[in-house]
């Protein structure tokens, strides 16, 4: 670990006017404390969202102005229940607070947010933070909810106990914001004086410097002569909670509690053994419909816009290599990135809405049993479902899963769900395999096969990846609340921007590369099909023919497979070029392509697209990861090419194996 010693940092006075850098506040709080809402109301659009280097933890920073116009920097740290580290998110929280990260300056002061209606749990983290000895402001958020639950909170008494300013607030209505800004402007912001008396079993070295409490890991004493922290940490937790209970007794007064809160009344229906799952099906059906169908219009519009743009620019530029690069490479590539936006927008809007109102946790509660069977978290359900529309937003949506192992497994298995880009390929090939009415069943079978693969690999991966990191799946079921549209839209905006900036650049680069290998070397005298054959892609297709021949594929299919990496549906257009189909109308073009397929013969006179080859090809498409965008997003979300490569290897490997088995066993059984 790099960084300064935590004790050395206290020398910098809170209101150091000598330094030019703006004062930095760290924003900490439990999940569901309304921390994000407060961050948004303090900073508005003056936010920077990124990643902490080396880990998949979102880094949020913003600029805020004090009551007298001063500039402050605010670091929104990941929500946590404790400073004891269980996950990478919490490690970032601890290390930033203690000034141990070289990429983030140690905060000058801390704003600690707690839910006023739930102080008997939230004061736990507050007491840990106050003990660190940094100048601190405690914010009691959701005072309105506390009031509705007949809980009277005495902020003054609490401030006296903790020795730091305590500010009652309703972040969603911005009540208390002025008081917070005034407190932030204080140059004499006091450091907390409150300390929980540690039990005698805690080694003296650790009791001296409270930050040491969070630096020692169980089973790994800091020094050889120290006792394993496991021996005394449980005692520390119990002592701290005893103190929390005492603080609550002095600072809060509970009135007559209503027997059933509004949340209870809603949950009676939404978590009902029958109506609960029914409601989940309904909501998810709607979500699926919107991501699948409602996004179609805008996606077509974006595609149309870029086709128009390509024609427009193509008309201006003189014909030649540069013309083709701009129209077919760059403009088509940018279009290929932006075409994801409607789906990403819709998915994140709905997930955000569900998360903000509190319904997402209920879905997780209901689905937990089923997801648990394959070793996943209830929260993985929504990203995995939306993966049937497109894996790209689904993988980004896995961020709602707080357990890092479950998040990774969800990201790794999501592309096994048959996404909408596979559908054109299925629809092209199925009529060649199954005639007539049974196509629908066969289509359902392909989706089922993909789902089975997803579940099988979820089970395998969750067993063998990061077993040491197992955390009990605890889901907090917060009270229902009205959605905060401002926060939701801001969140969607950050996601969209991140997608374009990080994943978009990779997708664009690879799209251009794929265009290059299909276009060069140029042979203008040849017609399109022959030109494709002698291009780098065609040569590559022929090179890989020995590898894919055992699956029943010839080199033309090989080109289609390679072209599919831009997006799977490109298979159709690439095959159309290979088989010289020139048809404006899509349906007629498909039919003609299918006719050509059924007529196509190998040199030895056997059919290229025999039913068995079609089945093998379909199975390959069900399993294989042929999507640059997915690889780029996985690389971004896991922060490493390693996991992207791992996923590519497993998916494409399983596809190869499955197709090989289908084709070879089929042939052995006498099918053709």
């Amino acid at each position: 670990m790099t960084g300064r010693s935590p004790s050395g940092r206290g020398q910098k006075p809170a209101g150091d006017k000598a330094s030019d850098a703006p004062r930095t506040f760290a924003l900490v709080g439990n999940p569901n404390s309304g921390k994000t809402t407060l961050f948004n109301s303090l900073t508005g659009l003056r936010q920077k969202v990124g990643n902490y280097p080396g880990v998949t933890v979102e880094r949020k920073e913003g600029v805020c102005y004090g009551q007298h116009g001063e500039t402050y920097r605010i670091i929104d740290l990941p929500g946590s229940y404790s400073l004891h580290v269980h996950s990478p998110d919490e490690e970032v929280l601890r290390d930033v607070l203690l000034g141990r990260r070289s990429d983030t300056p140690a905060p000058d002061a801390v704003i600690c947010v707690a839910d006023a209606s739930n102080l008997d749990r939230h004061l736990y983290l507050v007491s840990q933070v106050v003990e660190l000895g940094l100048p601190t402001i405690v914010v009691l958020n959701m005072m309105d909810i506390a009031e509705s639950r007949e809980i009277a909170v005495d902020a003054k008494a609490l401030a006296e106990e903790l020795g730091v300013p305590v500010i009652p607030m309703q972040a969603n209505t911005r009540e208390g914001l002025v008081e917070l800004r005034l407190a932030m402007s204080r140059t004499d912001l006091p450091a907390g004086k409150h300390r929980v008396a540690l039990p005698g079993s805690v080694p003296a070295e650790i009791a001296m410097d409270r930050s040491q409490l969070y630096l020692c890991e169980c089973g790994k004493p800091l020094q050889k002569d120290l006792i394993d922290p496991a021996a005394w940490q449980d005692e520390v937790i119990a002592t701290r909670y005893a103190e929390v209970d005492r603080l609550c007794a002095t600072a809060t007064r509970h009135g007559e509690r209503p027997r059933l809160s509004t949340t209870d009344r809603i949950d009676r229906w939404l978590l009902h053994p029958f109506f609960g799952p029914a409601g989940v099906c309904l909501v998810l059906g709607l979500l699926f419909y919107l991501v699948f169908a409602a996004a179609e219009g805008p996606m077509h519009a974006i595609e149309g816009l870029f086709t128009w743009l390509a024609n427009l620019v193509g008309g201006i530029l003189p014909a030649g290599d540069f013309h083709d690069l701009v129209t077919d490479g760059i403009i088509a590539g940018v279009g290929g990135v932006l075409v994801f936006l409607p789906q990403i927008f819709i998915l994140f809007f709905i997930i955000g809405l569900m998360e903000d109102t509190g319904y997402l946790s209920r879905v997780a509660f209901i689905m937990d049993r089923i997801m648990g069977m394959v070793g996943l978290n209830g929260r993985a359900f929504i990203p995995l479902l939306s993966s049937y529309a497109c894996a790209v937003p689904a993988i980004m949506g896995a961020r709602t899963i707080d357990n890092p192992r479950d998040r990774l497994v969800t990201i790794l298995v999501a592309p096994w769900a048959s996404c909408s880009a596979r559908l054109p390929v299925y629809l092209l090939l199925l009529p060649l395999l199954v005639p007539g009415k049974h196509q629908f069943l066969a289509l359902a079978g392909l989706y089922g096969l993909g789902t089975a693969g997803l579940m099988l690999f979820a089970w395998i991966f969750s067993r063998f990846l990061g077993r040491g990191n197992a955390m009990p799946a605890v889901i907090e079921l917060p009270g229902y609340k009205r959605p905060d549209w401002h926060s939701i839209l801001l969140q969607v905006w950050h996601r969209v921007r991140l997608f374009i900036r990080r994943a978009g650049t990779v997708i664009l680069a690879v799209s251009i590369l794929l265009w290059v290998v299909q276009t060069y070397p140029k042979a203008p005298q040849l017609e399109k099909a022959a030109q494709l054959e002698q291009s780098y892609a065609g040569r590559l297709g022929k090179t890989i023919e020995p590898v894919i021949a055992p699956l029943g594929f010839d080199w033309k299919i090989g080109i289609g497979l390679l072209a599919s990496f831009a997006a799977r549906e490109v298979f159709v257009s690439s095959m159309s070029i290979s088989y010289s189909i020139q048809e404006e109308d899509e349906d007629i073009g498909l039919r003609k392509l299918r006719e050509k397929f059924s007529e196509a013969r190998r040199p030895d006179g056997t059919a290229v697209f025999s039913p068995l080859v079609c089945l093998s090809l379909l199975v390959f498409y069900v399993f294989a990861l042929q999507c640059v965008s997915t690889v780029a997003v996985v690389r971004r979300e896991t922060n490493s090419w390693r996991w992207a490569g791992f996923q590519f290897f497993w998916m494409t490997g399983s596809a190869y194996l499955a197709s090989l088995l289908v084709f070879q066993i089929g042939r052995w059984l006498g099918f053709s």
Partner: protein
Amino acid sequence: MSNYVLMRLNRNSALAGVGFCTVSDLSPGCEGVISGFLNRDVALRRFREMGLVEGTGVRVVRKAPFRGAIEIAVRGARLSIRNEAASQIAVRLVGELE
């Protein structure tokens, strides 16, 4: 219930002599006071840190069907925990509400 508790008592001799059952044994509406955890797994520390310490009252609000997640009320909050985890939290029965 008593047979079940006895069976557990035999299995966990360390806790023998203390009449107890676990959160997963409670039916919805039942309330208990946490008396301890059945193993020293580090993962269970997360429960303690969320306020499930010895002496804290726990009420089972509802159980999802097929031994699914269990919703508990603890310290004024609602948490959903898995059945396996709930069977690690020992409680003393307090009484039935509602």
